[in-house]
């Protein structure tokens, strides 16, 4: 059984369902990417996994444990980390304080974790005393990912981590994400830059109107002429 297993999720914010029997799974230490056209419910699917969307049907298990009814906060304690797309840092707090707040639920010494985050994102160590709101878009994303890593999650969820950053910064962020996965952390990521994201993906999900349309390895999806024609622009 997969490390994360979110099966047959159906639900929405109001009366109308956004997700229709949507299934997402991630293996330990692997990268899963959700792509799809605008309004396909990519972010919604991820929020459902994190418990931010009421589900009418389906269940979510993490490492075999059913977490369907847990609140987002409790899921963090179970080993999930979530990086929202926007407003994902504390702007008037320093980089170091942002990381400290990420470790808020931990009672043990989190200094080694902070050092690991600084090793992964050396620029953050340099700017540790600077307010997160004063950083560039790419650096801010690094703070956001770093903050989520402070709880030592087993599964890291990223909602469009490269939105609004330059292509160079995007490549660097993807490299970092691969590095995170190599440490054994599973990654579930929503991406607009479908091609680049599928290249690093062990598993890719193409969602259309809240339902699974294609599911395969990243390479296989990239090679699939149907997927290329309809989603990757030829």
């Amino acid at each position, binding site marked *: 059984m997969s490390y994360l297993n979110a099966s047959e999720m159906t639900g929405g914010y109001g009366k109308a369902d956004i997700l229709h029997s949507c299934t997402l799974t991630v293996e330990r230490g692997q990268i899963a990417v959700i792509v799809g056209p605008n309004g396909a419910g990519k972010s919604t699917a991820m929020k459902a996994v994190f418990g931010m969307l009421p589900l009418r049907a389906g269940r979510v298990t993490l490492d075999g444990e059913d977490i369907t009814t847990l609140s987002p906060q409790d899921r963090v304690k179970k080993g999930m980390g979530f990086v929202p797309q926007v407003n994902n840092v*504390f702007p008037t*707090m320093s980089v170091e304080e942002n990381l400290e707040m990420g470790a808020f639920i931990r009672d043990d010494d989190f200094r080694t974790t902070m050092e690991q985050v600084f090793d992964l994102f050396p620029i953050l160590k340099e700017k540790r005393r600077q307010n997160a709101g004063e950083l560039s878009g790419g650096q801010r994303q690094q703070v956001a990912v770093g903050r989520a890593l402070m709880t030592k999650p087993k599964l890291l969820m990223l909602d469009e981590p490269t939105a609004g950053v330059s292509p160079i910064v995007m490549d660097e962020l993807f490299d970092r994400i691969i590095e995170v996965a190599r440490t054994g952390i599973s990654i579930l990521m929503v991406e607009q830059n479908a091609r680049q994201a599928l290249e690093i993906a062990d598993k890719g999900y193409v969602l259309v109107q809240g339902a699974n349309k294609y599911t395969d390895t990243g390479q296989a999806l990239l090679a699939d002429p149907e997927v290329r024609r309809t989603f990757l622009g030829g």
Partner: protein
Amino acid sequence: MELVNALVAITNYVIIPATAYGAQLALGALGVTLIYSILRFSNFAHGDTMAFGTGVVILVTWGFQSLGISFGPLPTALLALPFGILATAALMLGTDKVVYQYYRKVRAAPVVMVMVSVGVMFVMNALTRFLIGVDQINFDDGARFVINARQWREMTGLAEPLTLRSTQVITVVTAIITVAILFWFLNRTRTGKSMRAFSDNEDLALLSGIDPNKVVAVTWIITGALATIAGTLYGLDKSFKAFTYFQLLLPIFASAIVGGIGNPVGAIAGGFVISFSEVGLTYAWKKVATYLIPNWEPDGLVQLLSTDYKYAVSFTILILVLIFKPTGLFKGKIV
């Protein structure tokens, strides 16, 4: 010599009183700004919170006095202060439980919260009057002066008198200590940082496992303490009257907004901007003018505004800031 006399007159009638008043306003504005940035509404009940806290302090002071307990040269009210803080913090937490909590749960708009706080203001208003009455009360005991006019003359031989009242020194010293503790708390402790995180980004704070109920409770406790300290210092320096405290709401809000609401440093700066403007504009400059400009005896008092209009000063500054620089001197935040 004339210049020195002029400086002494300015120090005596403007700088010293405005500094003390500014410190009182700054403490008041800090309370308003904390509530604004963490609970996200303008708390109109703050003036009456100050009145309530001061009322309790006065009652405890009287109790101490009847027991023969005093604080030497310092006012007994300083000994009573912790009791006032405890009572006010309890009142704040009680009000939150009975009133505000519900509106937070239904996610009421900030303007609804403001109206709720107006209701709380009227209740506290009445509560304070039941507790201590409507009369003007002087509760300052202990030494009156640090420097009185006669000592000053013997010290310097200047014609122009200068007095430094002990309540003015106590106000400034207490304010400095209070602000230092507050900033240490907000910047260095885990709870303080979690409050700033909550103020910065509520959703992310919740995601990080910060307990909103604890943040709210601690905010009310600190606000109660700040209000009680500000009110007691103001009462010691001038006198206590429930209605005057209600009126203080205007200069306090003006201070918070001028400095940039939601920003603690701004609240302090704003307090001094308002106090110096108010005192400076309502001071009769005749004496200073006579010293500085030879052979000129002004006919009037050279007073820009009668002291009756002192609230117009804060009001005017408030409007000017809202029109031209709504985020204030230090960048505050707009909910």
